[in-house]
């Protein structure tokens, strides 16, 4: 029986020909997982296909398009680029498919973008602008690099050397400093000593996500070296996108496993939850709010650690050696809920779509820059759920989510407060 | 006469007649449909004869009116354009009773009397409409979608695979009987659907206008081991209907119905008119009748859990309903009524609806159960306008499948010479009911044009289907929208 060599390497779309050709069009990538289906409202979890109803915009459509790309059947066009890039790569499709099957949907979608960049068709102009900004000023926004630490206030204690390195990220540094401040205050209050990167640069999430692998790899190497040079044992982030990038995609870019990074990658909610359990973090100030929590994709569906793989595929598509697939089981669901439960006076309601069934805010991985309409649509769609459960405050764990939801709330004229979980915890210190 | 002679070549001399007395027998029935007389009557003995007859009539453009029973209520077997009446009562074999798969195959002429007796010998039964006459065709009653008194089975329809003869075709088997060589096949006739299309739907409710169904498989059931019949006097029908909405979806009971005093009196009375007068005057306005049963295994346990459930519901939610195993003031009602519900009405007794004044007309339709009181108001208002006493209307409420819907039936009793008045009442009541949303799914006689005017799109599509199966419109013309 002839075998095919393949690897989970997104630099070659061919590696995913089997996966794309075995998509059964069940749309498990599109619907909320049926066990958890909440009813006729809020029945989907694919932002791209909920925004645009043509099949091409769901993963099941993209699998067919990916095959056509391999077969040379399609010419690059604005429409084809839109199909590939109007997508926050939130992982709902990958996890949905892997409930029952062994197909690598998420990696196929990443590989399609890599191919677009390789062939000079992609990324979108807005992404190229981001790349320029990063090249010039080491942040997404093109803001002055020297202002990166301006979020710091005098009352925040930063250690010269510590086990924990807080990687703040571009968003919290420049557009959502309240998140960084709140997180820092919480860490201080919990006696968690932490340091910052001496010279923090963008993590490269957008570059990687839109297929600019070479640029992203350079940043990855540089950032990892910089962390190692500090002697940090743990890199902690308040940004779910950054968390995913460091934990999953840095190893992917360097063809190593997460375990081989040389340090742990954690999200703020993990550090805070641990402190809460140990008793070093105490939340005493009451907040009488009815709140809902949005599970940001980077710390839910997309959080499984990375292990490189290459092997061969043979009879009936079986692979050798055995491959333990990433099925989205490592989501940080308990930690934020523990933290919220510890806030005196707070009343927590789950939304109809929760945990791995959450509906992405639509901002991440290059989407908001190139497709602001999709990002706005997704956020507004998610806000319907917030209204449905009567929540006054929406909490998330990523500045991208916060920013996108905040804009949508303003546009809607909703009476909903949007906060990051760091702010929520900080307000109860 | 050419018709008779030609048909005689198919069925034999003794099995066709153009004698006036024979033809007159089919010219009227219990309905108000005006009389019509066939040109001849044929009595075929098998499907091949039926097929030959239809081929012949189709070639000569002769209308065909199929008849399977000896007693008719709705006028659909009265020839409207002359032609050949095909009487299938000789085709009355129970061809097979398969108790393992719980199916029987019966010819069109098999009657309720015949079938229930045969099944009883094996400890079996069929679900039944309310008191069908013993000499009516079982197959026809189910084809025409009579509503069963049994509400507990989710699978409602008793009909399975069948054979039909379309004009100008060989006998055609529907459903799993379509297998070549049936019944000498692995297929046992249990599936009515297919092949290709659901032909069985097209002949249901068709009043013989599509083709002639010569035999059919039907579902049969085992007799329960224990039966208990329960009664509740009811003054507020809505209250009783709410109770049924509560208990029937919980799969309580076998037979279940609500009858008003007039109908129940007519059913129970033995000595006429004394029994009837007394009963009609003293029975409660409505009586809810519910049969609960224990089956083969642990029958007492089944009765026990149903009774426990009923007791709790009545105590906690329906205190005003008193459900017991006797009809207060009428000892022996239980012992009398239960067997009646499992047997047809004896052919040698005047039909229960005819015992009072000799004639009756029933207006029945499908409705949402909660609308029953509204429809009753509508009918009473029309009856009053026509001078028909409200206290003399028979009303029968039959829940369907867990009470998701119901059949409501109004019966008007009259002497023959009052027919014209009743005709007017019937028509006006039907119109008024339709205006309020009553769904006449079985439009007999003059109900048909009323219904099909409202269902213009449906009627247009029906005609196109009819064109395929009966392009010359020889099958029972003048009925439905044909």
């Amino acid at each position, binding site marked *: 029986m002839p075998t095919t060599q393949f690897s989970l390497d997104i630099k070659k779309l061919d590696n995913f020909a089997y996966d794309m050709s*075995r998509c*059964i069009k*069940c749309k*498990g990538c599109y619907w909320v997982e*049926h*066990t*958890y289906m909440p*009813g*006729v409202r809020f*029945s989907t979890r694919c932002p791209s296909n909920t925004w645009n*109803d043509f*099949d091409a*915009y769901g993963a099941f459509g993209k*699998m067919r398009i990916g095959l056509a790309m391999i077969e040379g059947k399609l010419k690059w066009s604005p*429409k084809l680029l839109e*199909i590939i890039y109007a997508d926050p790569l939130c992982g709902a499709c990958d*996890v949905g498919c*892997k409930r*029952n*099957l062994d197909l690598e949907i998420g990696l196929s979608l990443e590989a399609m973008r890599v191919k677009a960049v390789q062939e000079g068709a992609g990324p979108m102009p807005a992404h190229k602008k981001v790349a320029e900004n990063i090249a010039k000023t080491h942040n997404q926004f093109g803001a002055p690099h020297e202002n990166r630490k301006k979020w710091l206030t005098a009352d925040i204690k930063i250690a010269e050397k510590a086990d924990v390195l807080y990687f703040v990220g571009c968003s919290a540094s420049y557009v959502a400093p309240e998140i960084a401040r709140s997180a820092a205050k919480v860490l201080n209050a919990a006696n968690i000593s932490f340091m910052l990167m001496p010279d923090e640069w963008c993590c490269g999430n957008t570059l990687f996500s839109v297929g600019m692998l070479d640029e992203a790899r350079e940043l990855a190497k540089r950032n990892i070296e910089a962390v190692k040079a500090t002697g940090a044992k743990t890199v902690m982030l308040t940004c779910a996108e950054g968390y995913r990038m460091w934990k999953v995609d840095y190893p992917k870019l360097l063809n190593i496993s997460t375990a081989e990074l040389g340090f742990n990658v954690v999200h703020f909610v993990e550090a805070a939850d641990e402190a809460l359990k140990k008793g070093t973090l105490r939340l005493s100030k009451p907040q009488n709010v009815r709140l809902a929590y949005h599970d940001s994709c980077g710390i839910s569906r997309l959080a499984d650690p990375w292990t490189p793989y290459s092997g061969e595929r043979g*009879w*009936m*598509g*079986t*692979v050798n050696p055995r*491959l333990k697939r990433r099925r989205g089981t490592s989501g940080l*669901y308990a930690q934020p809920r523990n933290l919220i439960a510890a806030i005196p006076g707070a009343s927590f309601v789950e939304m109809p779509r929760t945990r791995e069934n959450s509906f992405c805010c639509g901002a991440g991985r290059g989407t908001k820059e190139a497709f602001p309409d999709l990002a706005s649509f997704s956020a507004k769609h998610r806000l319907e759920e917030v209204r449905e459960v009567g929540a006054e405050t929406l909490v998330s764990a990523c500045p991208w989510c916060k920013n996108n939801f905040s804009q949508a709330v303003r546009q809607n004229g909703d009476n909903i407060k949007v906060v990051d979980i760091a702010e929520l915890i900080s307000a109860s210190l | 006469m050419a018709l008779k002679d030609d048909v005689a070549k198919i069925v034999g001399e003794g099995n066709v007649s153009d004698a006036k007395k024979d033809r007159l027998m089919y010219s009227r029935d219990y309905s108000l449909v005006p009389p019509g007389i066939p040109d001849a009557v044929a009595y075929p003995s098998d499907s091949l004869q039926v097929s030959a007859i239809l081929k012949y009539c189709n070639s000569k453009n002769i209308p065909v009116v199929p008849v399977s029973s000896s007693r008719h209520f709705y006028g659909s077997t009265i020839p409207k354009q002359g032609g050949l009446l095909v009487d299938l009562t000789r085709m009355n074999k129970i061809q097979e009773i398969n108790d393992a*798969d*719980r*199916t029987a195959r019966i010819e069109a002429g098999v009657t309720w009397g015949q079938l229930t007796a045969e099944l009883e010998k094996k400890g079996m039964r069929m679900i039944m409409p309310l008191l069908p006459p013993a000499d009516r065709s079982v197959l026809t009653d189910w084809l025409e979608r009579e509503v069963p008194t049994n509400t507990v089975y*989710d*699978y409602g329809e008793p009909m399975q695979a069948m054979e039909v003869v379309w004009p100008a075709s060989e006998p055609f*088997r529907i*459903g*799993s009987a379509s297998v070549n060589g*049936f019944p*000498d*096949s*692995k297929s046992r006739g*249990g*599936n009515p659907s*297919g*092949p*290709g*299309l*659901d032909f069985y739907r097209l002949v*249901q409710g068709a009043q013989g206008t599509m083709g002639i169904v010569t035999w059919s498989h039907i579902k049969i059931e085992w007799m329960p081991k224990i039966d208990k019949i329960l009664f509740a006097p009811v003054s507020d029908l809505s209250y009783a209907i709410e109770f049924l*909405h509560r208990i029937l979806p919980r799969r309580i009971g076998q037979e279940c119905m609500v009858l008003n005093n007039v109908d129940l009196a007519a059913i129970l009375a033995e000595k006429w008119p004394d029994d009837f007068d007394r009963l009609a005057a003293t029975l409660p306005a409505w009586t809810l009748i519910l049969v609960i049963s224990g089956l083969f295994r642990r029958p007492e*346990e089944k009765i026990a859990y149903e009774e426990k459930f009923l007791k709790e519901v009545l105590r906690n939610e329906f205190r005003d309903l008193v459900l017991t195993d006797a009809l207060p003031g009428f000892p022996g009602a239980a012992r009398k009524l239960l067997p009646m519900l499992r047997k047809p009405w004896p052919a040698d007794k005047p039909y229960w609806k005819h015992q009072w004044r000799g004639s009756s007309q029933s207006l029945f339709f499908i409705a*949402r159960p909660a609308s029953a009181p509204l429809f009753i108001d509508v009918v009473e208002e029309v009856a009053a306008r026509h001078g028909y006493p409200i206290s003399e209307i028979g009303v029968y409420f039959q829940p369907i499948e*867990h009470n*998701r819907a119901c059949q409501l039936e109004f019966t008007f009793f009259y002497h023959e010479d009052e027919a014209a008045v009743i005709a007017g009442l019937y028509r006006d009541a039907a119109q008024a009911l339709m205006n309020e949303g009553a*769904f006449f*799914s*079985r439009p007999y006689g003059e109900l*048909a044009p009323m219904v099909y005017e409202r*269902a213009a*799109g449906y009627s247009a*599509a029906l005609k196109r289907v009819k064109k*395929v199966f009966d392009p010359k419109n020889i099958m029972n013309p003048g009925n439905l929208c044909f």
Partner: protein
Amino acid sequence: MAISKKAYNALESIVGAKYITDDPAVCEGYRSGPGGYESGLGYERVMTKIPACVVLPRTTEEVQRIVKVCNRYSVPYVPYSTGFYGPRSHCHVENELLVDLKRLNDFEIDEKHMYAVVGSGVIYSPLQEEAMKRGMYVIIGGGGAQASVIANLIGDGWSPLSHRIGLPHRRILGTELVLPDGELVKMGSLAVGEDPFWGDGPGPDLRGLLRGFTGLRGCLGIVTKMAVKLLPFQPEKPMPTGIAPNTALALPEHRMKWINYQVPNKAAQVKAMFEISKAEIAGAVTKVPLFWRAIAKAECKEEFWDLWGKENEETIKNFHIVRVLLIGFTSEEQMKYDENVLNDIMAELGSQPRATKPSDESWIKNADSAGMWLMCGSYVSVDYIIETLSHAVQHGEAYADLKKKYTPPLMPDYGDPGWFQSFELGHQGYSEFLVYWDQDEDTTGVDHFYVETSKMNIRNRFYTSLLGPHQPLYLTGPKYGPNYHQWLLKVKDEFDPLWVCHPPTPLAHDVFVEKAEWMKSIKDWEVPKKFPMPKWE
């Protein structure tokens, strides 16, 4: 590949520019296969095409207008709800319009009268959830929760829960059908008013045009709205648990319970079904193919083969399970009664209950149906029959024999006779055969096996789902009815004289056999010189 400019403009004015496309990339997204139900086979390779144009209507009225435009400008079209049914639900000719019905997703529920009204875009799991919130349930067909409710009810539509109701046909109430020429037929109580609560008539029942035993694949029009029966359930809602991929519904302990029984032999398995049906208990009774157990246990495809590879004909022959779902519809006492009766029956048959998980993954919300494709990548239910239980038992044996001849390329199943169970409390029996293969191998054997199964059914006088558009009409037609195909074709000609609705269905499989070289060797039935339909390419 395109439809005429005039047609495109007319269609655009109906749905608006946002909901029509002829972009090649977008149309490519509607490709049939190469993975999916019945995909990776000859039929899909030969008969399916990428649409030239796709529209997304929102209402019945828009659908009607679209169909009329298609008739006006001779544009072939195919109705498409989810596309999950495989090649038969995709475009079959060049320059075809695909009418994507997903936006027809209105939903209403009438709790008291136990029905829901759905558009073609509504799938099963939301309907099930809405029903269960209100103490009711629906039967989700084996295709899974992702199937369109309407498409499933006019196509297939059965599951172990059919133990109580059987035919999905009678779950259909008031319905709207847009005929192939664009006329609208409303059936049941909808024929005379706005209320869809009842499905029969008036008079003869035109629901007969919606399907046969299995569906017509949309070649006789487009159903845009349907009222669907909901069935009374028990009051404690099963709750979802777990994180993907290990999600399940936790069953309320005193009102729902699956029990697996191991029985000594096949005869006992069959007897169990007869007896349970006769006793009129249980919500579901089934024997499922043993490889489903391996799928349920396996975390990945390789683990499946570890498990399945250990089986052989002997182990299969000697391992018989009857799976029963008890539902306390009436009360806890009723469930206890059902369980007592069930244990009486199983004890008589020499069987004991086995430890069974108090949860459901497969048949209430049907979340794991996609697992059918785990093992090999390709799958189809090649034949599935509702007849009597007696028929189901015999069919399995004949079929298993034929299947051996075609293994490989079919996945080895060691003679497992498939899925069978009682329907309609024993008035019917169900048997289904699932086959699996790898589409990268030579699948000629699978194409042949399909047709050979039809022939086996004919020879052995079995009823079958391989009728209508599923297999060559000229093969099965003369042998069932007889000549049901002539009636089907006459009805098709009456309602779709241009054959503009999903051509060349119902003759699609006949056309496939003519076009595919490798099918010539098994074609031993007569066909007319020219198929009686207008020519589409």
